[in-house]
């Protein structure tokens, strides 16, 4: 197996829930040794050997240390001194109280990189505001603009704030490591998940700040230049499943001609009110009604293929079963890798959406149980013998 980019890098991981674990998981997938420090009974968020919790915890080690106990804190500080990066998602006071903030740790290990991924950041009047991904999404404006056409809030089906926070956290670690390679210097990065998700609202924020325009829910208007037809269209039921939809996007004149041909050149496509892109945009309600008439007579998969054959952008609105059991593209690229579990079986997980030609990351292990790597961390990393380990357990500083 070729080496992975982060082999030899150790991450001490105090993060929990979603954003932090996504960040450290990305590092673990690429060869870093991620040591997750946690309490014996974290909130029961699910089985780490399967599904989402496995995705969040895979390629990591776990050790249960009691951070309420002075000797527990001492062990964690020793681990930090052996690590390249320390990551948490607490407000500022938590790591400071443990003597594990950047200032304290850099006194012990001058080139340490500390990344704190709190909700709203370590500074500012709301730095102690309590939040989760979905509440940060609400504050950013995403939730408000996810509405049905009549304005009813429709919610968000995914935790985008957590993902943006996670990706930004991984990037921070990688950029800081790159900088350390060149200068020998570590640093502290104060990452606010709120800012990470706000940053990707993108051009709409510019429209507010520059043009002063109030943003409306985007609906299915194209957000990347004029396009019509553009949207998701109901398709024929698949057996009892009446929830089948096809996304279609037609931009240029050439695409429109190919679209017309692909759907069999029905008479309505010759209507002068659909003659130009501008007119198709102006009359999109009529246009959408005609397009829906076609799609409802088609299986979504077949309609997608007919359009793609003519090089028209179209895609099935895939649900979890479509994605994981049927999509031939994900399957061909091995996007759901199989990982062995401890009982001789295996499970599949979400893969890494990019490959490097010679140093690709690999999903190697499923999520550890809490404290599963106690022996390795206490013995091999910290060099603590059996008798002292037993004493630490008896004192309640660690949990085996």
């Amino acid at each position, binding site marked *: 197996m070729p080496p992975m980019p982060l082999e030899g890098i150790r991450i001490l991981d105090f993060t929990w829930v979603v954003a932090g674990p996504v960040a450290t998981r990305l590092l673990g997938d690429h060869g870093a040794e991620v040591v997750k420090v946690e309490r014996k009974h974290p909130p029961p968020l699910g089985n780490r050997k399967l599904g989402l919790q496995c*995705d969040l915890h895979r390629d990591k080690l776990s050790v249960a240390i009691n951070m309420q106990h002075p000797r527990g804190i001492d062990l964690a500080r020793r681990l930090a001194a052996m690590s390249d990066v320390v990551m948490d998602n607490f407000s500022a006071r938590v790591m400071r109280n443990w003597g594990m903030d950047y200032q304290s740790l850099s006194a012990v290990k001058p080139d340490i990189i500390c990344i704190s991924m709190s909700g709203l950041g370590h500074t500012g009047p709301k730095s102690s505001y309590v939040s989760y991904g979905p509440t940060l999404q609400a504050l950013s404006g995403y939730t408000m603009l996810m509405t049905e056409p009549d304005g009813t809030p429709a919610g968000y089906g*995914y935790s985008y704030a957590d993902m943006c926070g996670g990706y930004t956290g991984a990037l921070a670690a990688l950029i800081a490591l790159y900088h350390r390679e060149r200068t020998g210097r570590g*640093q502290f990065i104060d990452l606010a998940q709120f800012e990470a998700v706000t940053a990707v609202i993108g051009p709409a924020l510019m429209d507010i700040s520059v043009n002063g325009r109030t943003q409306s829910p985007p609906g299915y208007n*194209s957000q990347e230049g004029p396009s019509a037809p553009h949207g*998701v269209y109901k398709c024929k039921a698949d057996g009892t499943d009446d929830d089948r939809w096809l996304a279609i996007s037609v931009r240029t004149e050439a695409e429109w001609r190919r679209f017309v041909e692909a759907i069999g050149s029905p008479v309505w496509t010759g209507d002068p009110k659909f003659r130009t892109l501008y007119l198709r945009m102006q009359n999109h309600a009529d246009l959408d009604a005609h397009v829906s008439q076609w799609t409802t007579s088609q299986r979504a998969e077949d309609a997608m293929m007919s359009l793609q054959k003519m090089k028209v952008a179209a895609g099935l609105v895939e649900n979890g079963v479509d994605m994981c059991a049927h999509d031939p593209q994900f399957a061909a690229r091995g996007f759901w890798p199989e990982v062995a579990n401890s009982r001789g079986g295996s499970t599949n997980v979400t893969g890494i959406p990019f490959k490097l030609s010679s140093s690709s990351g690999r999903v190697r292990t499923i999520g550890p149980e809490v404290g599963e790597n106690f022996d390795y961390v206490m013995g091999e990393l910290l060099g603590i013998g059996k008798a002292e380990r037993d004493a630490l357990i008896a004192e309640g500083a660690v949990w085996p």
Partner: protein
Amino acid sequence: MNGGALAGLKVLDLTGHRVQLCARILADMGADVIKIEPPAGDDARRIGPFLDDLPHRNRSLFFWFYNLNKRSLTLDLNDPRGVELMRSLARSADVVIESFAPGAMDRIGIGWESLHRDNPALVLCSMALFGQTGPYRDFEADDTVLSALGGMLYINGFPGRQPVRPLGLQAYHSSAYFGAIAVMLALLARDRTGNGEWIDLSMHEATAAAVEHVAGGYFERKEAEPRRGTLHWSRFFRVGKCRDGYIMHCSLGDWTSLIEWVKADGKAQDLDVPEYNEVVYRFLKAEHLFDVLDEWVKDYSREDLLERAQLLRQPYASVRPPEALFEDEQLIERGFFAEVAHPELGRKFRYPGAPYAWSATPWRVYRRPPLLGEHTAEILRDNLGMDAAQIAALMAEEVI
């Protein structure tokens, strides 16, 4: 050296309008990013919104957002002399980022093999819609179609109704984040091996990765994650409505203090039983629990409710429009919004800025987004040693 973490890193950005956020992330940390545009300008320059709603290639706010901190060089890659200039620039670059259809780089004459032969340490990041391989590799898509095929649409909105689309080009943004992560991993690998890497990123997969709970749900339960309206998939959050607007409920905070408060208001109904102390029970009874809490909050004003909630460390938040971000005291105090001067217009604008604060190598505004071809001559002079006569000749022949 500019003091950024990526100072000295030379990046050539060939991406079109889809994933240009990738190189911007690197530019914000100090990399020297040259955006290479066709002589008529990148397609992003034709996408709105536009400054004062006047469409013009130097007034696209869409372009501005994604190209802050980059320089612009125009190059006709349909002309062999343009291709030769591109190859010359790539000889001394660290990273080339592109988002052409698979095979296009080879046809132009700047595919991986030729770039790698010229400069073995070069990292080439190829970001195709569906990656470089697989049955969909030549399919067409835009952000909406990618969101459909990547599972990002199906889960938003109400069961039995049309799936709802999020604000912003989030399939592209997720791809751009993964692209930047992949580039940094390849650079760290290069530090050890001396060799560059070819990155094969699939936007389709990057989209699916941002909704990894969907695949997690499938691999755990063999079920498709449904649309749940405003109930978050974790079942711990739901949109509620106060007297004067929407809020986000959360049942993951300290339950005892929340229920004491609701009880004191006489609105606890049947939630005041010990079973609800268990996270798992709140998960199972989520719909009923939030129905009761909806009844409770409906006579509150948002301000009263949220102020009290945060005092009790309940992770509640306002569901508010993105316009509110510009008055958010936390973002303002942390300097999230960056003032960028556009001297040619005699104006300054507020841009969304850093998602993280770095202690040693700050995120910075180095330069406003470039005018079309603004830096062509200086780059050809400084990077390739060309003199004014040579540059003028290329310009006359419209190669640049």
